[in-house]
């Protein structure tokens, strides 16, 4: 225990003696938390529409008015030919082309049917799909308006209408920042924690001080604990800063209790630091440690459920996410912040995280050898 005190004293001194790294640890998450959540809106709106109108009739004008009034589309390009509009798509000036054939109005009135053509840039398949269905819905609505104009319907319209009402629980204003801010905080915390631990120990390996420590009678558990505790504390400070920003700048106060978040975070940090430790025992230099943690971070972040939904991933990728601590913390944050879940609601996640912490640290302790 006394040895631990000396270890901690030394680590803290070293941390505070390197202002460059200390600044980065605290300032970088703050800046990213202030900036990045604003970017995270992938609701499909502002679809750039290019119209090729070969008809120029009153009907097409009405239809276009209806489309622009919907708010989903920005009509900024009128093309004279499909070819020309396709070029707009190529240059990313348009996402969707609507081609109205000549005699559209005449066909609709005389032949009682007409056809419209749509072409959508589908590189982003989801956006294409949604954009297409929005437009179809508007056209359908317009279609019924036209019909009522021409047919005197009996008391009940022969057109079937299913009214769809939707409501959004837990976040009725659909403020995506409520979801993104805690999520980004989790990712930042993970990166800072893992990298600090990994690099710190590999650095001692590189400069040779670790050998000087290996030749002392110090117990390896003490040594590892002495490394983990200071970074754990830094992590908790970063978390606190992050939660403070979430409250001050985004007005996010968890519906559940801070206590729940802190309890989970305390265990989570041990897991993440353990992972850094593990990286450090396998990396022989800082370069390797960095590459390894870059590799892990990419997977943790992109398969963490914050950016894309885990349910949509193929089975094997969903298995990977089960070994991804980040995905658990993001889920817990969402539950506590937005749904007000309590400790007992998240207890399964807590157990899993304890498992992670034990597993990573246990593995790291076993594979750390004082003697080669």
């Amino acid at each position, binding site marked *: 225990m*006394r*040895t631990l005190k000396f270890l901690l004293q030394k680590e803290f001194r070293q941390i505070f003696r390197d202002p460059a790294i200390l600044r980065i640890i605290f300032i970088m998450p703050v800046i990213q938390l202030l900036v990045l959540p604003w970017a995270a809106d992938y609701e499909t709106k502002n679809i750039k529409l290019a119209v090729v109108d070969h008809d120029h009739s009153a009907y097409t004008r009405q239809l276009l008015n209806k489309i622009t009034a919907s708010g989903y589309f920005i009509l900024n390009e009128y093309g004279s030919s499909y070819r020309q509009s396709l070029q707009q798509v190529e240059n990313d000036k348009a996402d969707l082309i609507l081609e109205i054939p000549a005699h559209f109005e005449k066909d609709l009135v005389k032949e009682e049917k007409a056809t419209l053509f749509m072409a959508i840039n589908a590189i982003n398949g989801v956006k294409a799909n949604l954009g297409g269905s929005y437009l179809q819905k508007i056209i359908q609505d317009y279609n019924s308006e036209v019909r009522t104009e021409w047919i005197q319907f009996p008391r009940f319209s022969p057109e079937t209408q299913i009214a769809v009402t939707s409501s959004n629980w837990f976040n009725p204003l659909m403020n995506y920042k409520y979801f993104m801010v805690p999520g980004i905080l989790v990712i930042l915390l993970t990166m800072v924690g893992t990298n600090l631990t990994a690099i710190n120990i590999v650095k001692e390996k590189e400069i*040779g001080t670790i050998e000087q420590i290996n030749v002392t009678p110090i117990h390896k558990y003490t040594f590892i604990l002495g490394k983990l505790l200071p970074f754990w504390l830094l992590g908790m400070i970063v978390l606190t800063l992050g939660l403070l920003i979430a409250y001050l700048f985004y007005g996010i106060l968890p519906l559940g209790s801070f206590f729940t978040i802190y309890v989970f975070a305390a265990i989570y940090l041990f897991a993440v630091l353990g992972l850094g430790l593990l990286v450090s025992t396998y990396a022989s230099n800082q370069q390797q440690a960095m590459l390894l943690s870059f590799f892990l971070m990419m997977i943790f972040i992109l398969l963490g459920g914050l950016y894309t939904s885990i349910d949509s991933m193929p089975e094997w990728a969903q298995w990977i996410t089960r070994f991804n601590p980040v995905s658990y913390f993001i889920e817990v944050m969402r539950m506590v912040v937005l749904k007000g879940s309590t400790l007992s609601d998240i207890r399964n996640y807590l157990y899993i995280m304890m498992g992670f912490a034990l597993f990573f640290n246990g593995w790291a302790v076993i594979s750390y050898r004082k003697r080669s």
Partner: protein
Amino acid sequence: MEKIITAHKLTKRFGDFTAVNQISFAIQKGEIFGFLGANGAGKTTAMRMLCGLSMPSSGEATVAGFDIYRENEKIKRSIGYMSQKFSLYDDLTVKENMRFYGGIYGMTDTFIRDKTASILEQLHLEKEGDKLVGSLPLGWKQKLAFSVAIFHDPPIVFLDEPTGGVDPVTRREFWSMIYQASAAGITIFVTTHYMDEAEYCNRVSIMVDGRIEALDTPAQLKQTYQAKSMDGVFLKLARKATRAAD
């Protein structure tokens, strides 16, 4: 005299490469034992095995009466070690380094305070106590590292090329520190490739290609190999080497 370090056919292999090949020797308590050899002869590997940093492939050895296989953690209480790489923390001050290493050897606060003061006085570094180690010249760092290695008063200290890269004056001062430690009863195990330093040792062993080719007092060695200096002895033996220095 009491034997404090013994080795019997101690061997270390890395794959097909035998770094240390069946070396045997015994070191008396209080001796200054020199371990000589060209670069790559296996000195450091042999020392690392004795310190419990490296697992031997075969053979036996004891340090301070403890077996190096089973009791390596007990050995660590009885030894000090100064590695080839400079191993104090550059970003800690002189005092902080001493406090740290004293602390992890379980020394009391009073002991650490008194010892730190006496070392600084001895090295005439009283003013530098609160300076970062990284800012000190190499020679001072080296002397500090030695003081830290024997901070906890171990019966044995292992020094791995302690004087590499320092000027002759500092080297002489360094050796006077070694003599002082020896006079205080500490057994010194030192590797070097400076042949003049070999003359300072009570006994030296000369390693060539992982084996001990010769082991005796410097005077005896010079006589046996009919050389005027240790340099001569070494050249005669080292010529047999087939292993390239790294």
